[in-house]
């Protein structure tokens, strides 16, 4: 059967594939961290808001998450732009085609992001209140965020399945489609969403580590560890389901057919186990900081491994049709250099501003304590 895969852009790639891929994976890793904190954090905030009357710590955590979530949202979006850009350069002919086929839900993402964003802002302004409509607003924001994630799962599986494109197009050229016939869609989506909750758990552990007050600190670490452990163990099951539902050759690659893919899967399973083990060991420890830091680091490394694995999965699935390494390349080195310089300057500016805020906040806290 002739597949309707568009030919790649006639222009050469403006940078070598290794550079584009490095930037794609690096910025996507950062995006995923923030996205996980946003999705998981909104879920945590919702639960805390529902429990705010019965649990003082829950009410306090809701109050702490309030001002954090809008900024996390802002950086989720900002950090999402870059990987989407680099993805389009390398895989544009697949991504544009699949996006058009699910055009309506795909564009609806923009509206959903705006609504969820304002929902989170609403929560940030009301997070300290004991009453009000915050629960409803947060629940809606969470629903929107989960729907956005689902549309992404649809598009990023559909772009890998050109054999399904023509049927979708001829059934609804209006773009009212989703990739329902993809066997790995649901497990993949659940795997990522559970992962987001797990990372939010790590976020709570980090918040706990930065907390001065003992009781609250202990509670944050406990709740965070529990959330991470529970969702991660569950994710082993979902991950297995995901693996089983991958198409034959791709699945085979991960279970011995391709050494790199198999090794990644192995490491990707060992790291979260190590993270869980350290979080559990920390409970028995008198000064658990080291265990916790190692546990969180293993958790974050898991995310990094998953990001690479996801890329390997994409390349394996596209291998029969396309390999970006075969595209002509004409690097625009001068502008790449300018980008790198500006990127460093941007990071320095960011560091300057955040440092100023940190110093000033510290001074304020110290002054407040002195007054007491």
């Amino acid at each position, binding site marked *: 059967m002739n597949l309707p895969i*568009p030919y790649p*852009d006639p222009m050469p790639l403006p940078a070598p594939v290794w550079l584009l891929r490095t930037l794609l994976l690096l910025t996507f890793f950062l995006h995923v961290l923030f996205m996980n904190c946003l999705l998981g954090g909104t879920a945590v905030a919702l639960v805390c808001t529902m429990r705010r009357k019965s649990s003082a710590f829950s009410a306090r955590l809701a109050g702490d998450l309030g001002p954090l979530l809008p900024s996390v949202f802002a950086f989720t979006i900002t950090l999402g732009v*870059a990987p989407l850009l680099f993805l389009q350069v390398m895989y544009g002919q697949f991504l544009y085609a699949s996006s058009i086929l699910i055009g309506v839900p795909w564009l609806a*993402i923009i509206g959903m992001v705006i609504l969820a964003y304002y929902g989170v802002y609403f929560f940030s302004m009301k997070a300290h209140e004991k009453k009000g409509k915050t629960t409803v607003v947060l629940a809606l924001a969470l629903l929107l965020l989960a729907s956005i994630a689902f549309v992404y799962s649809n598009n990023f599986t559909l772009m890998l399945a050109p054999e399904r494109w023509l049927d979708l197009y001829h059934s609804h050229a209006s773009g009212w489609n989703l990739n329902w016939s993809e066997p790995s869609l649901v497990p993949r989506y659940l795997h990522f969403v559970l992962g987001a909750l797990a990372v939010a758990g790590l976020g709570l552990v980090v918040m706990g580590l930065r907390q001065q007050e003992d009781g609250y600190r202990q509670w944050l670490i406990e709740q965070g560890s529990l959330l991470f452990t529970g969702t991660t163990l569950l994710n082993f099951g979902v991950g297995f389901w995901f693996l089983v539902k991958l198409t034959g050759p791709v699945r085979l690659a991960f279970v011995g057919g391709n050494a790199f893919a198999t090794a990644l899967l192995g490491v990707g399973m060992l790291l979260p186990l190590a993270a869980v083990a350290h979080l559990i060991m920390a409970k028995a420890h008198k000064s658990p900081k080291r265990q916790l830091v190692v546990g969180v680091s293993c958790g974050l490394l898991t995310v990094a491994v998953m990001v690479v694995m996801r890329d390997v999965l994409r390349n394996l699935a596209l291998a029969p049709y396309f390999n970006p390494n075969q595209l002509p390349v004409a690097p*625009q080195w001068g502008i790449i250099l300018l980008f790198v310089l500006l990127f460093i300057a941007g990071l320095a500016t960011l560091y300057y501003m955040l440092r100023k805020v940190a110093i*000033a906040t510290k001074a304020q806290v110290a002054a407040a304590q002195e007054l007491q």
Partner: protein
Amino acid sequence: MNYPVWQLGFPGGLLIAAVAVLHVFISHFAIGGGAYLVLTERRAYSHNDLDLLGYVRHHSKFFALLTVVLGAVTGVGIWFTIGLVSPEATSSLIHTFVWGWAIEWVFFFVEIAAALIYAYHWDTLDRQTHLIVGWIYFVAAWASLVVINGIITYMLTPGRWLETGKFWDGFFNPTYWPSLWIRTAMAVALAGIFGLVTAMGEPSALRERVVRWAGWWLVLGIAPLLPLSRWYFHDFPSYSRAYFSGMYPQIRHALLAAAVFSGVALALALLFALLRPKMMNPVIVAVLLVAGIGVMGAGEYLREFSRYPYVINSYIYANDIRIGQVEAIAANGVARTSPWVEGSAADSRADRSNYGRQLFALECGSCHSVDGYRGMRKITRGWDTKFAGEILLHLPVVRETMPPFAGDAHDRAALGSYLASLAPATPSGANDKEIGQQVFAIHCAMCHSVGGRQRPLDLKGTDPEAIAGMLGTLGDINPDMPPFTGTDAEGRALAVYLNEPSH
């Protein structure tokens, strides 16, 4: 041809316009508003004006909520939309300018961080540092305009890039500088308008001070627009400068709208912000907001319309077909070029109509709908299949803004038959003159007017016999004219009408 076509039921271009106008309105405010914030804050410090400081704090929260959320996300929205509507062009832009976008992303990142820190750390940071963060915000926001302006103007005037293919040749193109300064001026004006919006919530003494201060921004932003626009239009591609000669009502209306809206804004600002700030009220501010959107919308429309028939001038047509592809598609036919089209022109009659409909979506759908915006049913009323097929041969002559039809003779026949099927009608009337007027509307009015601005036909007093004779040899008079496909009777009626037109 390479990609599927998103068949929304209305032209995709309309969707881009809707998202884009909202975005440019907020994003230009996000630039000018940054300078407005820091300069107002500085003014409050130097005049020791605590009320003004209170106002600017309040304004900064509104600013962050509007620009960081709606402004930033609609920007991503444009990107999503153009990828859906013009994937070929989007891909081309990304390949040419990915590093420009990457640089813009750095500024975007700094901009968002600075906006949030500025708006939410009034009490944490000392005055000096807070002002510095404000300046960082403004510089980053303006720098992102400096970058994106290069890409937007490139689409209209790619300049030397067409020969060299070099990044900087495309980036610093002929309309780069006038466009940058027009957009900067608009950013200043919009900062003033939004300054007035938040001023309405302040108590009267302070409100008057803020109204006058914001009024200056509005006036200083609007005042240079006229000379800057002249510079800008002067550097438009030569083919599209001809659109400004008056032949296209779209251009006339957009120019008029831009002039009226900016004139109204300037007058209102002078009167109610500078001279009588006491009288400024929410209704006038609402009018100013509408005028602001009007100016921006008209400006963007003029730029987009002037780019027709291209989406990237002299490189990709507005229907996302590359110029270089047209010849190959004409030789091979659409069915053999696009894997997305079902069937072929050789199908049975019923299927052929489906094939023609798909060709319409593929080649016309980015600008035309059937019944809605630029609806074809109205335009093709009374066309016969042969005439429609002939017109398709001459599209760039019928309208300079239209790309040529890409396809072989079978494709042309299939699309022609689809177009002719939209609104079949036979000219009728009480006498030859009435019938002739309808024949004119069907067969000539696409290109000609009687006594109008569009290629006027003046055959008044010419012997009807001679006119009817000319109808058989139109191609000899001008090879771009399609043959007359009406009946002999219709031809005679047309001749009667042209001999003695009434309009």
